[in-house]
């Protein structure tokens, strides 16, 4: 009997993962809020505020997209640097293949950087 049930384990797991992920994100925050606090909504409670004051402006404020551009470029080059360390210490083992692969990677990155530069991603004004 147990072996018959075990045969259907994959489908159970699959459904479990599907259900769990979709419900957890929806139910969990609501449930935790309800269980840990008293639920007495009023107009004052439901209205938005900033540090005790009524909101000064719309909270969906527009950020300058340039901040994101700089952040993205920083992450790319930060990762590149992180990638270079393990490559550098193991260069003896990986030999010319490893050296060429990294040079290919760097060249590709450089071309991407040239694109970003030409497009004006580095200019603030």
């Amino acid at each position, binding site marked *: 009997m147990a072996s018959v049930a075990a*045969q*259907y*384990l*994959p*489908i159970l*797991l*699959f*459904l479990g*993962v*599907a259900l769990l*992920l*979709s419900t957890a994100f929806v139910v969990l925050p609501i449930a935790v809020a309800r269980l840990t606090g008293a639920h007495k909504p009023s107009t004052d409670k439901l209205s938005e505020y900033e540090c005790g004051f009524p909101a000064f402006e719309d909270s969906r404020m527009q950020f300058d997209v340039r901040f994101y551009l700089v952040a993205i470029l920083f992450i790319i080059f930060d990762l590149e640097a992180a990638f270079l360390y393990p490559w550098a210490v193991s260069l003896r083992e990986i030999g010319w*293949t490893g050296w060429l692969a990294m040079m290919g990677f760097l060249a*590709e990155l450089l*071309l*991407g950087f*040239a*694109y970003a530069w*030409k*497009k004006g991603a580095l200019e603030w004004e």
Partner: protein
Amino acid sequence: MGYTASFALSLPEIILSFGAIALMLAAAWAGDKASKAISVIAVALLAGAAASLLGPSGSGGVGYDGLYVADGFSAFSKLLIYVSAAIAIIIAPGFFDREGEMRAEFPVLILLSAVGMGMMVSAIDLLSLYVGLELQSLAAYVLASFLRRDGRSAEAGLKYFVLGALASGILLYGISLLYGFSGGTSFHAVAVAMHAGVGTGLLFGLVFVLAGLAFKIAAVPFHMWTPDVYEGSPTPVTAFFASAPKVAAMGLLVRVAIEAMGPAGDEWRQIMIFCALASTILGAVAAIGQTNIKRLMAYSSINNVGFALFGLVPGTAYGASGVLTYMTVYIAMTLGSLLCILQMRDAEGNPVETIASLSGLSRTRPGLAAAFAVFMFSLAGIPPLFGFWPKFMVFDALVDVGMWPLAMIGIATSVIGAFYYLKIVKTIYFDEPSDVRFVPLRSTTEGVLILIAALFVSPLGYFTVPLLGKATLDAATALF
């Protein structure tokens, strides 16, 4: 195998990636004026990559120390992918020029996505699989939000990105489990470990990997992103999403299921049966209430993916060839329908997307209405049209291994699906004309493409059966 031989195997990817990088620089320096020239070169590169499949990159075997394979299966899938990608590039300028948003980066992104898709269908290692999948997805996220000033397009891109990242995480977690419990990342190592016995760890890995891949092909229960993304994306991008990435992800799924998880066939078969049934049923039922034609096409694609999955369930070469045949005919039907939708513009040139406004199309644009009706009948799988053939093949493969109850349920869901396809035909031909005046055809290229697709899915398509049957069977046999 030396490096030269390995490079020769991946010649299509090399052509496309070098070309894409060169075009990217051209796009930066020449600007959006050059977008037409860049589109032409991009299509030529795709043609070159397809032509290179005739050489060792079509059937050369394993390269890069077991990370990459060039066999009949990958060559057939790549051919479909390159054709769909080329069509997406060809139809884009007509759409974006009107919005003043045609940018030179569009063909470059499609090319990069094509490189990723080529890697997906050629991957025989969990790591090259993941790299290919991510390369395809990253380009797709940008393409979804290509109309930057359109709120819906931005929303589609963001939704696709967030949910796609979640799916990649699930997939990567599954890959880490498979690696941990099998001791290798190659499909062969996973298959060897599974042959020795599918323990709980491998089982969890299998489930997570299949969940991640089910997201990419938009099979129920991982389909929820599809309607929003298809509706919000610019129509040429929707056409691209519904064709090339579907073929790539389906090819990847077939290869993973058969080459890596083949010994665990009984385990994944249950999952495939569930996904296939759920996708066909939900795709058919949820489409009935839709009012937006692009949203309806999203549910139609969910429905069709379900039917293609039926071909994978038996785990036989004939079944896998059914999947390939299904995808071939499916991309002709879906690209044809979306090309027709692309043509639907009112007198001011604004795209018309509601189904109700299609009424009267048969009076103002009889040719377009006829083509659209052919695609709808074919998607519904009505016998004289070619859309019937792949459905027949996948169910035949099921009956071959004695799974006829499943085949019968599948046929029943196909009947439910026929309802909403026929409803559109009824709207086009029999409803009172709406006040939307459709403008005449502007682009002969698009007209020719619609004509070719319509002829292929018409009963004339059966003339391709001997050729298509042999090609898909050869491709599928390469997996076994």
